[in-house]
């Protein structure tokens, strides 16, 4: 079970994901926050794409697509879950909510460049 974090508990990992998401958004990624989370998983283990994909058992192409922000939050490879849960201070629920808010056009806490609901 993912532990829900209060703002006072949020660590740096969440803010770093938000930065990565902004950079992906600036590159036009349709799902920048999801892409940031995928990058965080690989960054946490410090592996290049080929080694990481082989370790978790996914195709390199699927990993690349996820990290480029082309895959929605809810469709990120499940194989990343155990890694993400291991990252201290990563508020996945908060990031997922931010991704949802951005898609629905409400006030986003970080990225405002996700596709609107009408494109879903």
């Amino acid at each position, binding site marked *: 079970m993912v532990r829900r974090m209060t703002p006072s508990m949020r660590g*740096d990992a969440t803010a*770093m994901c938000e930065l*990565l998401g902004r950079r992906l958004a600036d590159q036009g990624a349709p799902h920048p926050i999801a892409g940031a989370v995928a*990058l965080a998983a*690989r*960054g946490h283990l410090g592996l290049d794409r080929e080694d990481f994909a082989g370790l978790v058992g996914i195709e390199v192409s699927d990993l690349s697509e996820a990290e480029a922000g082309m895959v929605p939050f809810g469709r990120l490879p499940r194989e990343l879950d155990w890694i993400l849960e291991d990252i201290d201070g990563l508020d996945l629920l908060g990031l997922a909510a931010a991704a949802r808010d951005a898609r629905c056009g409400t006030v986003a806490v970080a990225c405002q460049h996700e596709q609107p609901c009408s494109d879903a």
Partner: protein
Amino acid sequence: MDTDDDDLCTCMQGMAAGDAAFLFMFHERFATKLTWIVRDMVKSMGRLDIATDPDEIDGLVIDACEVIFERAAGWRSGGALPWNWASRAIRSRVAAGIGHRLVEFDDQHDGDDTISHAPILEAGGVEGEASSRAAGAADLTLDTDPLVAEIAALVRADPRAGLLDRAMRAVGGERNRRICWQYGIQKALGDPSPAVTVGHMFDLEPGNIRQIFRRHRAKVLELVRSDDAFEQLREISWFAA
């Protein structure tokens, strides 16, 4: 080579190739070191208020990591450590992040976190004065500060705006309160790039504006949810669970 050296080389090689996963790794492994460096920089700029704010320092450390990421291709192992090698660029980014001029400080025009007497706005207009965290002597009146007039108009439309202003004052400094209000007002006006607009107002980068807004909003949210004095604000969609 110890583990830190291995991790450092791995991070720098990955970042030099433009791989942002290694930016995440670099931050995870070396944020503690950068925290000391950034905090010292902020103190040297005379901003003890920011130096003692962990959230502000965390944000500036992330900025410093991004600076190193952007320059990683120019770093060579065996030379200066990356945070020393890029210290001037990091200092420049930190200065931009806190609105610090890298020239001689002019205290006649300092505008952030220096408001010692700013009216608290209640329904019906201005009542009395209050002191916020003060670091200077800038003096605002209704006549000269358009933001005060804008908030007063909001309070006349909805008294909860005054309560929201109280909450914003309770969790942070004057500069961040003003940034949050301006950002919210610009968004409500339909500004497609509120962070750019507000960035121009405060001489900060849009990314810094978004970060300040996000962090201040999170603190306000926590206060609203935990303190019954702000119960009326919980029905606002901004704070709805």
